[in-house]
């Protein structure tokens, strides 16, 4: 008998009382001001949120970020800001090793934990979310920034579907560790800084 069948048989031979799935309905938390709450939580996890109305404004804010001004190799997958790497032409993700700054689109944000959701549907190398030294996300917001922010994770999963081969991740702040005596250090392996722009259109 294969290990698969042995394991499944062994499980089926156990007498376990049936328990129903509890369902996910609940009075889950909502915030009066999602934009403000999101910005507060993101700041607490080491990132910065901006609400902007134009590409010029994004550029103006980015120019205030020293890492952006100093960046030699910039990947942008957003039309609002120009990069200097032709991402589509790169065949081996290893070639992204020395990217200093990346500006990437994100789909929406979550107020309760400061996260944004991103996936690799239109992104050739998903390592671009993890390998750049610094990272910025642009989240399209139809009219108001609050439109791009859900209150909690239950609402977040209502927006997501997983029918096909794809990678997606919630990113909450820059990469961090506290493995040395519980001292928080920003920039463990991934991004050393994270800016999130809500672009009102």
């Amino acid at each position, binding site marked *: 008998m294969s*290990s698969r069948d042995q394991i499944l048989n062994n499980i089926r031979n156990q*007498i376990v009382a049936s*328990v129903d799935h509890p369902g996910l309905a609940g009075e889950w938390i909502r915030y009066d001001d999602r934009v403000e709450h999101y910005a507060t939580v993101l700041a607490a996890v080491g990132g910065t949120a901006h609400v902007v109305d134009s590409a010029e404004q994004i550029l103006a804010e980015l120019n205030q970020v020293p890492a952006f001004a100093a960046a030699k190799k910039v990947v942008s997958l957003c039309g609002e800001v120009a990069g200097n790497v032709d991402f589509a032409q790169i065949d081996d993700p290893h070639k992204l090793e020395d990217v200093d700054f990346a500006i990437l689109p994100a789909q929406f944000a979550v107020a309760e934990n400061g996260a944004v959701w991103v996936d690799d549907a239109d992104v050739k190398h998903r390592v671009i979310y993890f390998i750049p030294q610094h990272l910025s996300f642009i989240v399209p917001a139809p009219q108001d920034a609050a439109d791009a922010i859900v209150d909690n994770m239950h609402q977040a999963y209502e927006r997501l579907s*997983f029918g096909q*081969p794809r990678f997606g991740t919630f990113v*909450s702040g820059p990469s961090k560790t506290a493995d040395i005596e519980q001292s928080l250090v920003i920039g463990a392996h991934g991004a050393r800084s994270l800016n999130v722009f809500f672009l009102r259109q």
Partner: protein
Amino acid sequence: MKTAQHPEQAAEFVANDARAHWHDQALWFVREKRDRMAVSLPEWEQLRDTASQIKLHTVSRMADYLEEFERNATKLGAVVHWAKDAQEHNEIVLSLLKKIDAKRIVKSKSMLTEECHLNPFLEEQGIEVVDTDLGERIVQLRKEAPSHIVLPAIHIKKEEVSETFHEHLQTEAGNNDPNYLTEAARNHLREKFVAADAGITGVNFAIAETGGLVVCTNEGNADLGVSLPKLHIACMGIEKLVPKAADLSVFLRLLARSATGQPITTYSSHFHGPRPGGELHIILVDNGRSNLMGSSQFRNSLKCIRCGACMNTCPVYRRSGGHSYGTTVPGPIGSILAPSRDSKQHKSLPFACTLCGSCTDVCPVKIDLHHELLEWRGEIRKRGQLPISKTLPMKFTSWMMQSPWLFGVVGAIGRWCLRHFPRWAIYHGLNPWGKQREMPESPKQSFRELYQIHESKKASDE
């Protein structure tokens, strides 16, 4: 061979009093962060209830969900393997690595691969395995095991990290700055990431409905490790399953808040199938889990999502250190899981507990930890694995307490001795209660005597 038991190993740890206190404080700090996060959500208790129910439901239909997961993961292009024990798991990993002649592996945190002792197995085959979580890298360079499942290097001081990094990564001697040390590790591990032939990760959650899996890290090391090489091997215990993707909303809200007091981990990555041109292999490991399923007493421990909250709050864990347990998963949950694998070897663990119940209070999936620990004590007695130092005094106490007269006499003698004996006659090797602490002040009268006086006074007052 006699395996060292918890009291002996803990004795080594507490011998350094200052360090034991430092360790206690470090973990209490994490526990307090967890508390702040828990009270920030009014629905916290409802979340715990829901999480517990979802896990119980999943366990009750485990075989169906495993098959559903396998079907859906395969549809997405992943390859699913089944391993009944650690040995089979390790051999599957090795065969996958050999197929592409992989020599350099990066691995993110996975307690399952620790449980299976994957690293030494692969190293014997000439394969380099680099643990990429900073805490795990520190203990790996020091040739130690993690002492905590979320904070693997919580027992190590920054001065020691500095010495280790000076030796292995050529950092400045005496530079103990965590920023400097983390930067050194970042640069060292970047080289490893770029050079890796394959990436191995653990799994936090696997979704039956979609065939996907979720890996949570703060550092981004799991993602970096599997986004560069073509081969991703994900190793998971079969209890990591959840039925639906939407169930993750509950678990991701609880996990990081309970573990480190963060609202969510920095990266919560959802892998559905391999990336274009790559391979994703998922190994489903039993290694004793399905046996636990049939036990109505201990089935609850399969709900565990490995957040470590029970360790951070445990007064015994905090004061005795993770290594004193001698198991991959230490602390309250480890003291339940280990004896179910080998109760003879781990017989002392259910006694490394004051039954204070704090673990049960913080557990995000409501495992009745201290009840299960008490159950284990009875089970170990039934199996005849208790040492005579425990069984003999228990027999005497049971005999004595069955006679109210004898109980009164022994109590009176005991109280008198405590008041009148010299210190050396009370504090010695035969009295573990006097070890590192003062015995209680002995009252002149017993409770029974006080009660009788009170009652007769009440009667005369009336």
